[in-house]
């Protein structure tokens, strides 16, 4: 029972060519929360998101969702950084969100009414319905990020892993995205969001996970997002295990 509605990261170490990028990370993330993943460049934020998404092999430890191995399934959606996508790809916003249904549809099965309804709901939740037929290259940065979220929603994933979604967004777009993330968390989804702008952390997240190769602190924003923890997280050198 302890594992219900939790994403459990149990003593996970992930390495690049035998150099640990994440060391013995041990946290229990509650579904229904919007969690900020904080840390300096090279702290292992993107690596952690990829490891949870099953895109990086674990050197040791295990990751479980609801008590089961979740890797490379549709219950976890990974949202890459916007710069990694070719936005000239010939597809509309609805076409992009449709892709969230592909794992369920396979090769042959046609789009059912139910699939269409799920895509429409995803567009509505992310405030993209009026832009559904627009080309993706005509979207602003915030709208692109919402289109990613809509695809994850259409995938009916329980956990969304977002890599720097707020980077480069203006204040209004940030606010919009924040509201949508809050709404999704309210539906019981877990949102793990890597983020680098410390000023906006208090208004964006319920919990924060502070990482600098190893866990610095994790918990509710008010308890954990303290000057002392920030200083420890952003100290120039990543902490050596069992540092003073």
């Amino acid at each position, binding site marked *: 029972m302890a594992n219900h509605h939790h994403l459990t990261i149990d003593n996970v170490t992930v390495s690049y060519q035998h150099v640990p990028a994440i060391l013995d990370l041990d946290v229990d993330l509650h579904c229904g929360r919007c969690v900020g993943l904080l840390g300096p460049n090279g702290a292992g934020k993107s690596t952690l998101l990829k490891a949870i998404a099953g*895109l990086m092999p674990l050197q040791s430890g295990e990751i479980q969702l609801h008590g089961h191995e979740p890797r*490379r399934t*549709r219950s976890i*959606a990974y949202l890459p950084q916007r710069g990694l996508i070719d936005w000239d*790809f010939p597809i509309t916003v609805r076409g992009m969100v449709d892709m969230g249904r592909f794992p369920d549809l396979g*090769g042959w099965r046609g789009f059912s009414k139910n699939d269409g309804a799920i895509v429409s709901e995803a567009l509505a939740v992310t405030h993209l319905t009026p832009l559904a037929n627009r080309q993706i290259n005509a979207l602003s940065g915030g709208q692109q990020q919402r289109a990613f979220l809509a695809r994850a929603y259409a995938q009916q994933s329980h956990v969304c892993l977002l890599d720097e979604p707020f980077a480069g967004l203006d204040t209004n777009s940030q606010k919009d995205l924040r509201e949508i993330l809050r709404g999704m968390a309210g539906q019981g989804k877990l949102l793990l969001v890597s983020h680098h702008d410390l000023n906006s952390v208090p208004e964006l997240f319920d919990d924060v996970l502070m990482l600098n190769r190893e866990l610095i602190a994790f918990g509710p924003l008010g308890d954990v997002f303290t000057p002392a923890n920030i200083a420890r997280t952003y100290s120039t050198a990543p902490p050596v295990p069992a540092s003073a």
Partner: protein
Amino acid sequence: MSFFLDPFHYEFMQKALLGCLLVGFTNGYLSGFIVLRRHALLADGLSHSLLPGLAVGAIFFSLNPVGLFLGALVAALLVVLGGKMITHSSRLKDDTSIGALYIAAFAFGIILLKFAPVRVDLSHFLFGNVLGMANGDLWITYALSFFIVLVLTVFHRHLLLALFDPVVASSMGLSVAWLDYLLIGMMVMAMIASLQAVGAVMSIGLLILPAATIYLLSDSYDTMVWGGAFLGMASAVIGLLLSYWVNLPSGPAIVMVLSAVFVAAYLFGPRYGVINRLLNNRRTKRAAAAPSTVS
């Protein structure tokens, strides 16, 4: 009308027409995936790498189409897999390792052809001869075209996802590397299906130009794939007729028709055409300058 229909009174032209329709459609359909995957240069390399396989086929099976097909398939797969192996085991990237192997394979193929028991015209393999299509060639083209379109249709959602967002496709449990190999395999088969009609090298025109042209005209993935197929088919037939009327080699005639449409789309495309964009930019600048001149 008889101007268009008369050529097809000859049996060799009827076979050529069938060959053009099949090869034009299949290559054009595939071209959407190749352009979006940015495999145009890889396709060029692969087309040259077919040659040693064709030479081995010619040596051991004379010019039997099945022997040539198997030889070309094995040669192309060896170049792709060898290239990937070099990439994984050295610091070289795919383009360099496959580029190095394909030109080596091409040179080896030319030397091997000297040992073929039958006289083989190199330009026949490279540029094809659609007017010389025999029943055996047509059957191979039928079978391969059907197989390629079937595979692309079954996997079109997986391919679309992997082409657009490979990282997310991988996180959804798709094997992006396997899908890439599948696409490369289909490219090789399409080239082999096109050998007799347009040749290994000219088939690149049919594998790149149809979708590249539609991409300059449309923002729809479906239009790119299906429009590419129909453009490939129409251009192949027009090229065939041109080659009949003006007495031109058919493969290059087909590619020249496609190239002319491509250049027209590049210049005059309503949204992404160069001329229209220049005119729009000028209009925007004028509109921006207008208030300041008034005030």
